[in-house]
């Protein structure tokens, strides 16, 4: 999957879970500060993303995923591993 494909699929998950407009889910956006995704919704996003992208995102890693770009980069690395 390309970076843009991952971003777009992740944007759909964020929209489904938190109601954020998918077009607003861009790489430079912070989940908490820009998109208003609270901590429990973030857990839901992570679990949906694990299934969608076939990766594992440990709980300890979630706190490092501050922006959409952080999450997309993590998923790309995990898919490549």
């Amino acid at each position, binding site marked *: 999957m390309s970076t843009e494909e991952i971003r777009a699929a992740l944007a759909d998950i964020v929209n489904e*879970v*938190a*109601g954020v407009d998918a077009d607003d889910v861009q790489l430079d956006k912070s989940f908490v500060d820009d998109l208003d995704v609270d901590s*429990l919704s973030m*857990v*839901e996003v992570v*679990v949906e993303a*694990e*299934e969608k992208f076939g990766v594992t995102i440990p709980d300890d890693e979630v706190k490092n995923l501050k922006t959409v770009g952080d999450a997309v980069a993590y998923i790309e690395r995990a898919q490549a591993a």
Partner: protein
Amino acid sequence: MTGQTNRTRVVVTGIGTTNPVGGNATDTWDGMVAGRSGVRRLADSPGFAPWVESGLAAELPVGIAGTAAVEPSDVLERVRARRLDRSSQFALIAATEAWKDSGLDAAQAADELDGDRIGVAMASGIGGVHTLLSNYDAMLEKGPRRVSPLSVPMLMANAPAATISLEIGARAAVNTPVSACASGNEAIALAADQIRLGRADIVVAGGTEAAIHPLPIAAFANMMALSKNPGDPATVSRPWDTGRDGFVLGEGAGALVLESEEHAKARGARIYAEVLGAGITADSHDIAQPDPEGRGGSRAILRALADGDIDPADVAHVNAHATSTPQGDVAEALMLHATLGGHATDVIVSGTKSMTGHLLGGAGALEAVATILALHHRLAPPTINLDDLDPAVELDIATKPRDLPLGDIVALNNSFGFGGANVAVAFGSVG
């Protein structure tokens, strides 16, 4: 002469409901007066679609229920609904309607309310059973990682009350009475007490239930509480009729805005009725069966009358618990004779579960809405499907809408629950 004069008076200034007959109070009242049943085939109910598709629905011993007339997902914003159990969705819809109906939404927008003086008493009989079981299903299918992190705040019994507290900024007591099928009525009784005790000026009170799921259906059917009548769904709930054979499960919520009379009058609110008194008792007889002579229920009615200093001769209407079970319907008739004496046959009695089915923890609240509207419109709603009155029942049961007398009258709302819980609330007419 009826009515205590030397204490804080509690009045009803707002009503709301969503239930099998209607998605709001107006549609519900119009439907009830028209004698319209909200009981449907589960196969025709959108909320039951997952189990119709899986085939489980066809294996259940019961194929009907009073499913919501309006799906909550058609009313609530999608992400909001996603974070709420179905029972909280119903409660939020009913409470929001009641809140707007009372005019308190405008007072709040004008910053005229003190949230520290606003409470909530929103009951649930069973809690968030859909959330609990759907997450269990997900865990078995896909593993513990798939259990929603929102499961606990969604399924906890006080989630509906807490949801309303968040919605309206209520910061006085936020209570969740749990007494099975008496829960909704108990919430109203406790809410009135909060206001009388000076702990709140306003309490949003009621009950909710969303238990139309294969497991509760199987459980109630296996304990032989549900009707297994395979006929036209609209005819199955038939309180006091000789052909009754159990209740029909319903879902939904009812909500009232209760307010001290002083607070309501100061803001020029419309007052539907007064909460005159309430009685709460227990049978200590059996975990599921009612006392066959209805002694605990009689004591609840007597306490409600005494609490409101009510002359039994002023009672003009009863919205009975009347679930359409062989034993319970007769026991309630005995209670009315034991408490109202010779006046029992002068009272116009309605069994609205004939149309709504049994909303369990929401029942007492929905029936409070019906009782209050009966006083407001001076009209007792009908009991449908009463073709052949059980000879053990000597009551004047409304089978068509019946006019209630003018002047100061009292209406009783009865609820009885598993665990031996009995609650009676007496409402007085206003104007």
